[in-house]
């Protein structure tokens, strides 16, 4: 794994957090995720990537953190996963993927519209060949933890 391919995603995630919530999350050590590995998250925002590399970017949160962050943006208390939570997470993963393209310009990547998956231990299926490596990037913020997972065939 080359860190130069992961850095654009880390920087984009920090950027969107700072801009939206005035918080800079700490990055923990990235690790290799096995496909369809069980996880602890309640909601994930997914964006597909095409172009000269195929894959996906997935942003995963606990219900608590997803609703807490949405409350900051919409200026009301959000307790359940509703349309505003879906909107918030979708926009965040869209910005992360779109911004990260700047650091991977040689691959002429194209991003899809975001989708949201919810449910305890929801399943995320990754596109691409069996050998696609999926990197999990754990983040820690003052209000909780979340993970950004990136899998890009031919790059990572």
């Amino acid at each position: 794994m080359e860190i130069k391919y992961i850095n654009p995603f880390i920087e984009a995630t920090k950027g969107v957090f700072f801009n939206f919530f005035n918080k800079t999350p700490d990055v923990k050590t990235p690790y290799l995720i096995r496909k369809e590995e069980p996880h602890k998250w309640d909601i994930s925002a997914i964006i597909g990537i095409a172009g000269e590399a195929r894959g996906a970017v997935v942003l995963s949160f606990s219900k608590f953190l997803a609703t807490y962050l949405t409350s900051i943006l919409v200026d009301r208390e959000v307790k359940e996963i509703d349309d505003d939570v879906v909107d918030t997470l979708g926009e965040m993963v869209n910005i992360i993927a779109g911004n990260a393209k700047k650091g991977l310009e040689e691959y002429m990547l194209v991003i899809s519209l975001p989708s949201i998956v919810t449910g305890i231990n929801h399943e995320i299926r990754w596109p691409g060949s069996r050998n696609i490596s999926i990197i999990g990037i754990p983040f820690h913020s003052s209000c909780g933890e979340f993970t950004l997972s990136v899998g890009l065939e031919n790059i990572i």
Partner: protein
Amino acid sequence: MKFLIVDDSRIMRNIIKNIINLLKIKDVEYREASDGIEAYKILEEDNIDILFLDWNMPHLNGLDLVRKLRSIGKFTNLPIIMITSEAAKYNVIEAVKEGVDDYIVKPIREDTFLKKLKKFIDKCST
């Protein structure tokens, strides 16, 4: 002045409105749309002064809307500010080539956005 804000994220449309409101423009009116088709309908029926346009949207995306508008006489001079997450240089070049007047990368930096917007407003007012 009448502004049309087009983004499939309602939260993003509100963020854009809140930033524009910092300029305290007199008699400003907002119209909103969540995709290119809805935006086109509004542009046809109303006199919009500035269009704020996202790129990645369902049904008709922002860039396809720009292509459509620039091919129609009455919209060739409509000021279009694209506000998108697409940060790659080749995306910016493509958008400008198709007729976008300015390009803002999300997340929006208030100071940069307002500086750019002020120029457009001054131009519209003269």
